[in-house]
């Protein structure tokens, strides 16, 4: 009897069409966005990020590259104008340290399709 030897490496499969994924930048560029000057996102207590956090869950969960920790950063930088307003960072932070407000007066992302 022959036994099947399953292929587990996707890249090794022939005839799988390449899906050209837009970059994060191009994806966000497709969205309609109304600028607002003040960030609707922040950290409540910067010291919590410095002293209590070594997992950066806000960065890991964000679908839009809003939360960033680069180099020796101890407190994330926030590219709030990328924000898709899902709120996941607020739920993800185990220290409940994400300050989140709805952008005011219709500002922020405006979904056309949703």
């Amino acid at each position, binding site marked *: *009897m*022959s*036994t*099947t030897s*399953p*292929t*587990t*490496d*996707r890249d090794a*499969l022939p005839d*799988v*069409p*390449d*899906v*050209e*994924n*837009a970059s*994060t930048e*191009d*994806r*966000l560029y*497709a*969205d309609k966005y*109304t600028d607002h000057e003040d960030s609707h996102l922040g950290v409540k207590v910067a010291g919590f990020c410095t002293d209590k956090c070594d*997992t950066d*869950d806000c*960065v*890991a*969960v*964000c*679908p*839009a*590259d809003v939360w960033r920790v680069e180099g020796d950063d101890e407190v994330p930088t926030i590219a709030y104008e990328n924000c*898709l*307003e*899902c*709120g*996941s960072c*607020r*739920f*993800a932070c*185990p220290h*409940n340290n994400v300050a*989140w*407000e*709805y*952008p*005011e*007066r*219709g500002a*922020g*992302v*405006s*979904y*056309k*399709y*949703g």
Partner: protein
Amino acid sequence: METPDYDNEFDAIVVGAGLAGSAAALAMANQDLDVLVLERGQSPGTKNVFGGVLYTPTVRELVDIDDAPLERYVAEKRYGVLTETDETAVTMRPGEWLEEPHNDSYTVLRGSFDEWFAEQAVDAGATLLTETTVTGLVREPGGGAAEGRVVGVETDRPDGTIRAPVVVVAEGANSLVSEGAGLRDHHDREDVAVAAKEVLKFDRETIEQRFRLNGDQGVAYNYFGEGAVGDAVGGGFIYTNKRTVSVGVAYSIEDAVASDQNPEETLNDFKQHPAVAPLVRGGRTVEYSAHAIPEGGIDAVPDLVSDGALLAGDAAGLVLNNGVHLEGTNMAVESGYQAGRAVAAAVDGDDGSVDDRALATYPEELADSFVVQNLQHYDFFQELAVEDREFLFSELPRALADAETEYFAVDRDPKEAHAEAAKDRLLDAAGGYVGAAKRAWKYRKLLS
């Protein structure tokens, strides 16, 4: 900006013109209540995201949907389990779904549907204010509540306080107002999923050929397993609209933070799956969106009425995900509808007094409805999915793929040997006959 004074001018305020909010406003306006709907987006729907399929039984109870901006009706459902390289799927196309009302299942785009649905509430007499963000609730001492009774809302408009006898909070999953006002607790992250979605543009003919669709037919595909969202609890989806295809992933935030890739990368991987890529390739991204989904089940549903405020829709955690049924829009509309009816019965339009016993009928009615009944019936699933994740999302998809490859293997051996080996592979994954029987028992409620 001109700001009419809305303070004390209305019988009730609804926070959010999504499906729950507009349903509540419709129910109240239909009973001749003066209702004010506050929406933070530039128009209703602009802040809203779902998969999605809209289930319309309660919508049809409230309005005529002949003119509604529906995309396609669901003519085909598919449930696929994916390994990295394999798909095993069940596809169904019952003839009955071709007939109206199409099992009350339609793909829609929230930008247009929510705007239309809110217009129906306005046509019924509700007042809609857009670009108005509710930033908190106003309480006043009294009413038997320790922290005082909710008597209105704070907004970001000039002179932003607007008072009314009752407030329905239908603000959505990222429930800042209800948490801030102490109407609900902060969600635990194991009770919330993160979803990332893309809307891809095609021409209509490409969609109809690719998915075998005629006229207004559409598909709803749900995918599970490690080929969909890695080792996370969750899944991927594809829904066809008229000229666009919605593709996305949704999975537990608890798993997302543990994963070495972010939701966008998970979406990219899902789209590149050998069984998915041919369906989504070539589309132009016209929108990228994300949303949180409350999936804590019945245990995470807060008190639906407290101190003169009512919670409905996602803000109340009313979402069902048992792996087979992925529902939220119908529960949002039903909860808004029931909340609106209770408010209409409770508020005296002449003197603004509120009958709290009438308000309390809202959770009672909802408890008797499919919304709470379904959440209770399938309450076991989320916990099981987490407990059995390795089996459900990894071992089972692999065993199925191995077994089917074996069973259908074409060579010069007798088929009996292949059939035997396929059976052994499945039994091995399930833990033998005893293990298989135990699992069948554990999951029996899924099909009942």
